[in-house]
């Protein structure tokens, strides 16, 4: 125990703490069951592999890989690819949702162009309040003028 390297002295407690934390998370059933089990086994395996480096070498040997470090390297590269792929899928889904949202907004605010004179279209496209506001006072004024003499 006491002839552990510095790396082991830091790495084993760190991985151990993380393993315990993920076990607690799993017990409280926070997050998914599958991802909980995944992280628990990952950190446990990490603690074991750092504490007893020979175990990874033995596993590597049975697979026909010379060194345990190589096995870990291959696993890390594979994990990187899988992680990247999952991010890509997620990213695409998010992009698609964003497009559907933009489309919903565009469809909701669609403005039909005037089929007659293009001047009518100009009025429709200009800030919506302008045209009615310009008409309204004119419509009110005659009414008031009529009302006053009586």
């Amino acid at each position, binding site marked *: 125990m006491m002839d552990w390297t510095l790396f082991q002295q830091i790495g084993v407690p760190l991985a151990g703490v993380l393993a315990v934390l993920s076990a607690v998370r799993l017990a409280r059933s926070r997050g998914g069951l599958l991802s909980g089990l995944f992280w628990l086994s990952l950190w446990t395996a990490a603690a074991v592999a750092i504490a007893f480096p020979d175990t990874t070498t033995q596993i590597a040997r049975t697979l026909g890989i010379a060194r345990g470090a190589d096995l870990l390297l291959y696993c890390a590269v594979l994990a990187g690819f899988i992680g990247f792929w999952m991010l890509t899928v997620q990213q695409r889904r998010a992009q*698609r949702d964003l497009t559907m949202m*933009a*489309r919903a907004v565009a*469809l909701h*605010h*669609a*403005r039909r*162009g005037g089929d007659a004179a*293009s001047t009518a279209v*100009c009025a429709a496209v200009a800030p919506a309040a302008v045209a009615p506001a310009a008409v309204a006072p004119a419509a009110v004024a005659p009414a008031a003028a009529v009302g006053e003499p009586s």
Partner: protein
Amino acid sequence: MSATPPNRHGVYIIVAAFHEERAVGDVVRGLRVAGWPDVVVVDDGSADRTAMVAGDAGAHVLVHPINRGQGAALQTGISWAVAQGAEIIITFDADGQHREEDLDALIAPIRAGHAHAVLGSRFLEHADAVPLGRRLLLWGAVWFSRVVSGAQLTDAHNGLRALSAEMATHVDITLDRMAHASELIDQIVRSGLPWQEVSVRVRYTEYSRAKGQRGSAALRIVLDYLLGRILR
């Protein structure tokens, strides 16, 4: 405005526009003056006055609040046109490269009941009008389309096409950027409905070439498309 010829009623022309305030007004006016009443401009989140210019020119205007790419904008326009009761939907580029004169030939096979999709091709007759660099690039795109879609096309990524309302229900563009052109062909082929190409000309102006796709974008288009096929 001249009276609309009867065969043009129910034809909606979709123009996807991103930062096209310089060209889109003339494109819309040109189409409307030529007797195409329903021009739909989908402003794809432009920061300039594209939407206003298009509306002033008499187009129906839909605005994406943020930029989503040409494929997304076309699908928005197609969805809207279908909801308006469109019989035929045409996609038309905003940069002035397509010619109004080609449109009657484009819708004729659909009106006659021979086809549900008609794709404009630069290479059926007027191949020499296409600049050499473009021609080489498009030759690659055509070859790619033949391999992956099995469609015997003479042109690919030509933005001028006509779809019947029925074909439009088979079309759902999900590739937001330029790879939508290949996706669209896939969906047309898979619909099982008849389609054909007709010869069109493209105006290669300095403006349209500057706005067009660079050759270096080809790789990205291929990657987008393949990823779209895998992830669907």
